[in-house]
């Protein structure tokens, strides 16, 4: 299954954009397709529904490729996701012809409660094993390769037994799934928890990176940095992207913007900035022995 994903990954290598309803019409109204490698879609926004948005997505699908990225699989929860939810998700991933599906290495449900937020997991071997088992089961169910994303986290729940890098590596090793490495999340965590972001990334098995995410963040008055996806990507994060791509080589990179979404031309200008950082990483990658 991962062999297929590698072929798709090569096809989609480049910079894509998280599809948001705020600029959906602007994209559809353009005479020529915009220059994006792909659009990333949150399937929960389109599952089990009709109306304008699924129809618009179908029209977009005539000109663009989609990659699905979910929000509520709650990979680290004790209970598995409900069967009917997985059925709907499978249908949506197939409908969008996504080459893989990803979700977050986090807790977003507790029993039958759905928290609609990405909460941190207890970093220990038992959780890593549960996440790996869950990922393999979901991958079998969805019929496409799975990848998981490292989250921004602001506090650790309980006694931490593994470092985050070791935890991620363990889940990768035991699940056989891919990594969606969010460069901005690493940067945010490095500020909040006081570590070197580049060193953190160097500890990860970068040959398992299926996709990269990049976004902006916000610093609160008390100094806590929150991953808002509501601002431009700052230079240190772009540099981190470049150095990461230098190691990974060509991969799909996604610019996420969920809040304070600017007009489409501004977003496309930012996409070009991200593309330059990505290209610089690729150029350096080619020069590596």
């Amino acid at each position: 299954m991962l062999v297929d994903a590698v072929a798709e990954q090569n096809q989609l290598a480049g910079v894509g954009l998280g599809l948001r309803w705020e600029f959906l019409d602007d994209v559809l109204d353009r005479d020529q397709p915009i220059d994006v490698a792909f659009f990333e879609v949150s399937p929960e926004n389109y599952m089990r529904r009709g109306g304008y948005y699924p129809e618009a997505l179908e029209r977009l699908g005539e000109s663009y490729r989609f990659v699905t990225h979910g929000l509520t699989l709650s990979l680290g929860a004790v209970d598995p996701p409900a069967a009917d939810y997985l059925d709907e998700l499978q249908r949506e991933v197939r409908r969008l012809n996504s080459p893989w599906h990803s979700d977050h290495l986090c807790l977003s449900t507790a029993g039958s409660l759905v928290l609609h937020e990405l909460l941190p997991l207890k970093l220990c071997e038992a959780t890593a094993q549960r996440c790996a088992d869950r990922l393999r089961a979901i991958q079998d169910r969805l019929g496409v390769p799975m990848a998981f994303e490292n989250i921004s986290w602001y506090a650790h729940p309980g006694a931490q037994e593994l470092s985050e890098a070791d935890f991620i590596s363990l889940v990768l090793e035991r699940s056989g799934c891919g990594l969606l490495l969010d460069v901005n999340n690493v940067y945010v965590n490095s500020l909040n928890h006081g570590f070197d972001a580049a060193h953190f990334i160097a500890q990860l098995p970068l040959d398992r990176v299926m996709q990269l995410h990049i976004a902006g963040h916000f610093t609160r008055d008390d100094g806590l940095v929150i991953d808002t996806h509501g601002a431009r990507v700052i230079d240190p994060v772009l540099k981190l992207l470049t150095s990461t791509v230098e190691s990974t080589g060509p991969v799909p990179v996604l610019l996420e913007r969920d809040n304070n979404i600017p007009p489409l031309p501004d977003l496309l200008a930012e996409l070009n900035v991200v593309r330059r950082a990505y290209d610089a990483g690729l150029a350096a990658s080619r020069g590596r022995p």
Partner: protein
Amino acid sequence: MRSLEDAIADLTLGPLLDADDKLAVDTWLSRHGVEKHDAEQLRNGGLKRLMVYRRLVRANLRSAVQVAIPRVVARMGALFDEYFDRFLAERGPRTHYLRDVTTEFLDFCTGHWETDPRVPAYMMSLARHESVVIELNAMPVRSTEFVTPELTLDNPVRFIEATRLMKHDFAVHELSESDSDRTAPAERPVALFGYRSPEHTTRFLELTPMAAELLRRLLAGSPLGNALNDAAKALDIPLTQPVIDGSARVLADLAERGALLGTELRTEQGTTNAAR
């Protein structure tokens, strides 16, 4: 591990826990059976940092409801937050779809608001009227297979999926769309037919009593002839030619609006008379 998960859910959705109140924290840890070494970390500062998730979770859920029922949130003010807090603590969101959290919230409030003298009697009607817009916008598309446009008395009628027949005791549909308006709606029974137009706009039609009784039966799957007879009987009016003509006009109007597809050619039991 479940104990930690339950504790986090309670921390984010439940009553506010004072992280500086040692007794309250100990009670919270022990109520959820959090293991000793995890409890130790939480006591030693971990809990305070974890509280940031309480704000994130609640802000996200509240904004989803605010988008769906802005006028209700504005009119209720602090009372809305009181009930929203109760909803989070006593039931909590169960849906994977953020758009459905409002319906869960209103289902929770039904029964509570009716008996709370602080909540105006029309508020639930207004809330349902506001929230149905998102519900209708998102309803799945129904297949047009096994439908013929001509209506026949012996067969059920097929509507698009995105329809809703609503009865209110207040004319909430006549209120201004402005969040700052505090006018109370007129108290009178109204029946509204809501549907999603082919242009993806939610529209409402106020129905006569006969049209409401007829559509209620048709939406439940009654054959057209039975629905007409039963609707007239329910209202204790004779099924005269003008009543039949009026009903025909209502159905023709709905067909023209794209809300009524035609005669159902297949039921759960098999094909209908019209398909044979």
